[in-house]
């Protein structure tokens, strides 16, 4: 039996994306978001999380999408530390034993480092976000 993996299915402007559940620390609402001049434009600001400052990324800006910043804060743990992602909704947790098709490193370019590969979800293909490539 193939090993199953769990993914958080989230949405951005109506499109679904996935991120491994193992890298998600908390799903919450963005409270007390503060602007910080030192942060680049993809950051919506910073917020206090468990006693530390958490940089919050507007994923839509990162992926060059239109629309207002999301209303759900996804706190992720990556190799560079913790980061918050603003997404529109978190739809479900997907448990699957199906393999995602990873993007081979040789084909990656700056526009695709945010993605790990492609996953099948409800008959459609969803992009698997790369928590380490988001920053």
């Amino acid at each position, binding site marked *: 039996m193939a090993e199953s993996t769990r993914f958080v299915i989230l949405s951005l402007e109506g*499109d679904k994306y996935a991120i491994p559940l193992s890298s998600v620390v908390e799903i919450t609402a963005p409270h007390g978001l503060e602007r910080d001049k030192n942060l680049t434009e993809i950051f919506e600001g910073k917020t206090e999380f468990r006693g530390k400052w958490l940089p919050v990324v507007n994923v839509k800006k990162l992926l060059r999408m239109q629309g207002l910043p999301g209303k759900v804060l996804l706190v992720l743990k990556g190799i560079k530390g913790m980061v918050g992602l603003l997404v529109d909704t978190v739809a479900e947790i997907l448990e699957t034993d199906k393999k995602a098709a990873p993007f081979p490193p040789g*084909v990656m370019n700056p526009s695709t480092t945010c993605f790990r590969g492609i996953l099948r979800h409800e008959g459609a*293909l969803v992009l698997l976000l790369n928590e380490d490539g988001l920053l």
Partner: protein
Amino acid sequence: MAASYDKSEIIEFFLMEANEHLQNLNAGLLSLEKNPADKSLIDELFRAAHTLKGSAAMMGYQGISEVGHKAEDMLGQFRSGAFPIRKDTLNFLFDAVDAIKLMVDGISSQQAEDPLVIEGIAQSYKDLLQNIPGAAERPQSQQAVNAPLAPAQSKQAPLPAAREPSASSDDIDLAWDKTFSEGFGEKPDTRSKEPDPVEPPKDELDLAWEKTFGADDEPIVVEPLEEAAAAVPAKDDAISVEPLEEAAAAHSSAEDDAISVEPLEEAPDTAPDAESLKIEIEAAKRTGVLEKRGLGRRAMDAPEVEKQFIRVNIERLDNLMNLVGEMVVNRNRLERQIEFVKSLREEITFNQKRLLTTVKTFEEKYEYTLNYQTPGQQAPAQQTHDFFDLEFDRYDDFNLLSRKLTEITNDTNEIMTELSAFFDAFELDTAKISTITTNLQDEITMARMVEMDKLFQLYQRPVRDLSQAEGKEVEMVVTGGETKIDKTIFEIISDPIMHMVRNAVSHGIETPDARRKAGKDPKGLLILNARHEGNNIVLEIQDDGSGMDPARLRTAAVEKGFLTRAEADGLTEAEALNLIFRAGFSTAAAVSKVSGRGVGMDVVSNQLLKINGRIEIKTEPGVGTKFVIRLPLTLAIAQALIVKFKDQEMAIPMTLVEETTRFSFKDIQRIAGEEMVNLRDSLIRLVKLNELLGLGKFPRKDESYRYPTLILGMAEKRIALMVEDIAGREEIVVKSLGEYLKGVNAFSGATISGEGNVRLILNISTLFGEEPVGAKASVISVRQAVQPVEAAPAAPAPKGKTQVLVVDDSISIRKFVQRFLNRAGYEVEVASDGMAALETMGKAKFDVVITDLEMPVMHGYDLIAEMKRNTALAKTPVIVLTSRAGDKHKQKAMEMGAQDYLVKPFDEQEMLTALKRVLSAAALAARA
């Protein structure tokens, strides 16, 4: 003047458009019946009838156009308030719509327009014109019958005495005269049969008409009959009105037989027209031709051919294809599972047999050799001492075990036999489902198919024009035109093939003199052939011209700076031929020819690569050239090789895979920094998939281990792609990677494996290009691709195509003009109304705009006004193309800033001349 070339290619657009207009007219007339005061509705109906008339005339359907004109005229009279909107005038319009529908239906079944139907409508119109003047003078009771649903705006306005067009319709009639007197001279002028000021009394016709067309739901109008009878010359006084009233009364009680037509037939003035019409009507009644005009009979009267078709949105077909794709994925999965169960069954059967044999052998071998010390229940010795051992069964533990084992093995055997039978049936059922899925897939694939003949037809005219322009004689022969191809692929290959056809005529086939000198028939031959080959479509473009000379290509490559002389000399013949696929490459003579290539052969090959197509050249100097194009049958489902690296699988479309072989690392040669392998004495560049995708080196294996290697081919290029492993060949369903990943050109899509895992589909075309696989923008547009040609210093820059925007609410006219201008060498965009045109002009620059006047959303006049207001568009010349022939319209358009004014149906030469004139004027103005 009607355009002369074959319009069959745009008939489908006309039918689609005509049916939409008819639907709108029917629905609109029904609404108008309820809301006769709705002026905007009348405008809409008028526009629909006008457009329908215009496009029908353009397509050469004179009858439809003629009836459309009558309907338009009537609606025009509604609009001006000259005619009242009432039951009989509306009924006429419904009848006209029905008549048009009948003729439109006839087009798809290739039935000629029925002159009787057209004549019937003309006659009906004529009758109405006569009927209306009397309406105001009728008694109250009479008016109640045909009481206007909306009051005529100008009751005092002299009603057009039948022949007199209203002031508002003069231009329509002028256009009409232009159309039918000049363009369709051979058509009998039905208008000439319209009533003269001294008309035969129409009462007889009315009666005959009503009798024929079953106007039994309306009481017969007696008064006009009386008036008509009174108008009959003295010698007809003998005709009694009384019987007519009686007949009318009888008719109103639905007893048609009571109507006596005979006395009316005796009326001398009704002779010959009415008589002949009556005979025709009677004949038609017998044959049922005119009966089809009635409302509510459409479905059953639709031609048999029409009944067999319904229109389906292409999006719906795509969805169906996706669902079938899912079925194919699951079928593949089921097949894999069956294979797995099959192997399990074989394993079980084998082991079960082994067990049985073992138990039996064991039993036979030891049954009588074991001593009596075997534990367990024994037979009582006292009773058996007179018997030999063999005369009784033994019941010790061993024997009991042995028997039980035999029994269990036999039971298992029986169960396995049943299971096997079940499994065989299951396998059979699965095979059936698999066959049905395949058939379903084939059927849906076929539903998206169009015949190649449609594409080949597009080239007839350019071949004719180009050969004439170049003083050549070329015969174009089409074979396999019935071969079907996916509509999406059809659209993608249309331009590349056009380019190759033009090349064949312009550069391939020699002049008659040259051919004579070469001992050839002065008339050149261009063969276009299509055929199916497995899961591919093979297209061949062959000419019997001068062929391609590798030496000349080498020289051209040196002259254009593509290669040094040494490099050129080092090319094999195939490599030299391959030069034509380089961006910007052409022979010097080629670019100066009037064929005016819009795209080069590099773009042809790139376009083909986009759809996993491939092209090969076969040529012999002096004999001719043949281009062989192989295309997939459809883009949605493809045959693919599944390759593996580590535990990841990828799909490679089979179309470009020529063969698979194996090479070891020892076979790799390094030449000029490139890794090459030798395949049958030909050196081919080697690419290792793992390295290409940045996956590092192949797992360590023996130096002599031969890795699977795919030989990929595109045109004359060959590439060897070494992979770690090939998992198999499979039919895959191609899924788009979506907008965001379009920039990742290493993959052309994704597919789902039988196990439900996602596999990426490798975009082989990137291997033939020079871009790294991770680069963005893999797809280059035709224009982008042409730019290097223009930029090439040594090559004369091909003249950019003139950009024309055609604005018309009729799709038939848009398509007609677009294709005609495309053939004439213009690049054409289209817009369906003024607003859409402005939007299009906001995105791209156009050299000239050709616009209709009457269009929904934004009128042509408004469009011209907007353009003149906008500084960026003010200098763009405008040609008006309308069916309004009146001077008033023309004057207004010219005053507003239009540069020329053409009336539909237009003459092709007239339009080309107008285009040249306005473009030259614009160029001069720009220089000034």
